[in-house]
């Protein structure tokens, strides 16, 4: 599965990068979401994959029985997912606001603040 997931991660990155290079604000955001999916999967994969061994101690036991999935990457990914949700919500509000003030879904028209 690692191999497959590695390919999937690469594909997600590629799609994300391609979308981010478009001129549309919406595509930019979609690209960002794809890239954050890719990053989450990357952490998950890099932490080691294991089937049917959720890191939940069985009732009455004192510790996880081996083998078990590494709980730490899961916690990290969970945190990362929630953070990117918060950031995404803000970004969406911002992008919509910009869209309303510019009237077009085109990043190329937002150049007034550079030199």
């Amino acid at each position, binding site marked *: *599965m690692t*191999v*497959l*997931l*590695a*390919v999937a*991660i*690469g*594909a*997600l*990155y*590629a*799609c994300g*990068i*391609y979308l*981010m*290079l478009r001129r549309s604000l*919406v595509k930019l955001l979609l690209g960002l*979401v*794809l890239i954050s*999916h*890719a990053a989450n*999967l*990357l952490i998950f*994969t*890099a932490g*080691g994959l294991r089937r*049917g*061994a959720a*890191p939940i101690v*069985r009732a009455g*036991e004192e*510790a*996880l029985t081996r083998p*078990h999935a*590494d*709980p*730490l990457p*899961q*916690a*990290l990914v*969970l945190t990362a997912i*929630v953070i990117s949700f*918060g*950031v*995404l*919500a*803000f970004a*969406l*509000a911002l*992008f*919509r*606001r910009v869209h309303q003030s510019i009237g077009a*879904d*085109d*990043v*190329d028209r937002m150049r*007034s603040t*550079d*030199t």
Partner: protein
Amino acid sequence: MLGEVLTGFVAAAFAAPLARRLPRLAGPILALVPLGILAALTWRYAGSAAPPRTSVAWLPGLGIDLAFRLDGLAYLFALLICGIGAVILVYAGAYFAGDRRRGRMLATLLAFMASMLGVVLADHLVALFVFWELTSVTSYLLIGFDHEQEKSRKAALQALLVTGGGGLALLAGVVLLAQAAGTWDISALAGQAQTIRASPLQLPIIVLVLAGCFTKSAQVPFHFWLPNAMAAPTPVSAYLHSATMVKAGVYLAARLNPSLGGAAAWEWALIGFGALTAVTAAAMSLRQHELKRLLAYSTVASLGVLIMLVGLAAPEGGADAVTAAKAVVLFLLAHALYKATLFLVAGSLTRATGLKDARLLVGLRRAMPLTFVAGVLAGLSMVGVPALLGYLGKESAIAAAWERHAAGPAMLALVLAAPPLVVVGLRVGVAPFLGSRRAVVADGAGTAHEVPTGMWVGPVALAVIGLVLGLAPMLLNRVVSETAAAVHGAPVAARLALWHGFNAVVLLDVAIVLGGVALWLWRSSIDRWTRRLARLAAFGPERGYALALEGTLAFGRVQTRLLQSGYLRRYLLVVFLFAIAVVGAALVAAHRPGAIGAALGEIVHVHAEDVLLVVMMVVAAVAVVHSRSRVAAVIALGAVGLAVSLVFVLYSAPDLALTQVLIETLTVILFVLAMRQLPFFVDLSSRRTRVRDLVVAVLGGGLMTTLVLLASHVQLGDEVASAYFAAEAVPQGHGRNVVNVILVDFRALDTLGEITVLALAAIGVIALVRGRTGLEARR
């Protein structure tokens, strides 16, 4: 001696309030400061046989002290700085009568004086550099004093950039010098001359140090800033450009002559640039008619002569070097005295008549008798009439060049440069006062009368000192021998006399004066002749300065337009390309044959549902890219998220899966809410752009895949942390869901930060939404 230097800065702080309270007396009162400092220094100097030295630790960690040492060379310069400084302060006080900027002028002059004093007294390379830069900054403020004029601002900037650029070279130079010599103390450098010479850094040091000296002392090709700096008020020009700041370069060259002087590069750079400067500037002075510009070019020429003389005073040279060392001192002293006087006289003339053009000023001896006295004495001193100090200066310079080589470049340069300087002396110091008043063309001169006391007393005093020292040069014996010794790096005995007997030098001297007179008599035809040369100025170094500045700015503009284009996707493209380049290069370097193959070999252990999931994920991702309808794209995005959460389900992460599903739902809702009114996507980019972006995207994705594949096989295999979690979640965390225990206990700090992010996102959304409604309400 720190006290003496600091006094000037402290006095500067009080200058402005003083000028407000006692406007008339501020100049004379503040003039007491340099005189007091001078008295204190003289007391120290006269009181000890060996040069007194004081040192205060400043930055002990880097070996930097505020060390000062008062030897002959330092004392001579201190004498000029304080003595002429006092005169200038009195003069400036009167010059700015009724001007509310008087306080600022006096304060800046005092700060400049103190900085200059610091330069010549410092016995630590860094301390010297600190004061050196301070002179640049204070002179920037002084040159740009009339800052409402664009000309002044430009001249100030030019001076600052040229001397500042040299200053940076000097900084590198002194650091390398200290590194090569193993000491920061200037007085200890001479003892390390051999070590320095053996160092591979010697040539860079010489180049860098001389870059500092030459820019500061306005040597060709850096000379142009000095004439332009004449935009400053007269007291400033008189002080900065005759006696002090421009001499700082000469001072430093002289100071380091014993330690760097043995090298041929040093010697020939000094002689060559000095000679070139002297001749060029002297020739250019012939073209000038404005009083201050005449003086400016002659100053540049004299600085050239001084630099050349330092070059002749090689530390291991013979008698000719000794003569040159003495000539440095005498010429320096004489030049400072007569040039400062002439500048002040020029300022008085302009103040009295409103005229700047030397051709229009005639017959003022009755109207301005005291200025006349000062002018004539100083002018004739510059011409080199015996019994004035200027004669001794010029005579000794000729002697030094003659002794070195009767037909050498130094001699040649002197012979060529001296006659035009005679002309300048006559035109500024003598000509305006002679002739009949009937010849006065302009009205201003008709009603001219003597300037106020404060403006004549100083010039007269300086001119008289020149006369006294010219008549009784033996007064200078001690200071000349000690100063020359410092320049030469070996003891020098000076026995000065009014008349050294009739010899070839005297003959040359006479010839030079006659040549000067001839130049003056035929000035109209020479003027016509040199006009043609003036066209060459278009190709001069000032043009180079302008080109360098404009070129840099043009390059900056192009670079900025290229980089900071405003197109976000270009920024992202550069970011991705840079990342791909550096990460890719490292990955290629890390590549081992077979590694990827081995990683790929694992593909046999794959479940069918895995394949299905991954295919779903990739197809959905491609659909997001490909879709023309926004809603479809968002739904496809949701499908990607769903596939991801299924991966979490399959691979033992129930919490993650739940979170992902919920978040994905909310994300889709958010997208739908945000994009309700938006139309379909349009293809905005050309085909070429899309292909290019596709290549970048595939490269980026491929890189990440490779990285994951390679990294998945490099594992230390002892996850201490995760083992700890597995073991301690129940006993100490009181929870069986290890992931949740990590989130709320083991690593609760992460979660704390995370909910802070959420809270701020909420605030941000509200601010954006409400802010808009507020805006619309106002409309």
